[in-house]
């Protein structure tokens, strides 16, 4: 995030509960489009952003009082960087989970109903970075435009 970039910066903070996250994701997606995110990338960004924020709501704040999710976006001509910060539990092992696709199995009844989130994030981003400091998680998603 240290590269010089004088383009659009957007930020939004909202309580880490499902209903607020739903509104926050929709608001950020709309504002990124208004600020010139190319149309061919908007779907990828929307999907990855939603999965990353849902992970914070469902896992980082699981079993503890939830606080806020802070999202900072920096949109340049060639790339979009989104940093999602929270004060919840760290990622297990301080590592970004693998992006293995969920196996579909051999029958309808065995189909997975979850476990797609990190796979989608890996598929749709150019780079994922994770840092933990001062009791906060910072997940940076980079999209090359």
């Amino acid at each position, binding site marked *: 995030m240290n590269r010089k970039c004088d383009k659009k910066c957007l930020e939004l903070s909202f309580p880490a509960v499902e209903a607020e996250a739903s509104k926050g994701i*929709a608001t950020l997606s709309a504002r990124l489009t208004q600020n010139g995110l190319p149309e061919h990338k908007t779907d990828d960004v929307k999907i990855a952003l939603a*999965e990353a924020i*849902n992970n914070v709501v469902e896992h980082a704040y699981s079993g503890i009082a939830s606080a806020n999710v802070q999202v900072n976006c920096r949109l340049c001509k060639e790339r979009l960087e989104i940093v999602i910060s929270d004060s919840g539990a760290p990622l297990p092992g301080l590592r970004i989970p693998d992006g293995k696709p969920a196996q579909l199995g051999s029958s309808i009844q065995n*189909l997975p109903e979850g476990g797609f989130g990190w796979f*989608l994030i890996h598929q749709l981003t150019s780079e994922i970075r994770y840092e933990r400091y001062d009791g906060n998680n910072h997940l940076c998603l980079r999209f090359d435009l």
Partner: protein
Amino acid sequence: MALTSSTTGTTQVITVRADRIDAAMAIQFKEDMRCQTEGGPTRVILDLSSVEFIDSSGLGAIVASMKQLGSGRTLDLAGLHPVVEKVFRLTRMDTVFRLYPTMDSALSTAVEQ
């Protein structure tokens, strides 16, 4: 979660009256689908033409909706926006569900049961 339903012969069409199916409404969607499809026809077509966004929780809720139909019944999907179709394609769920670009194309395609 607003769903409306109409049944013609052996086909039930359920229309989603919401612009997203995401983590905030996935559980409600699954429950509402259970109510709508209990004891109904063998073929259910879900009209997603109003749904402009879906996340993996919403995808999971649609998968659960198909499972709770039980054997001998199918859940087909119609009117998918490109971003919704992309989530199905990336997760390979497009190989599990029949996807139709429009409700008309879904209705005009006879399905072997």
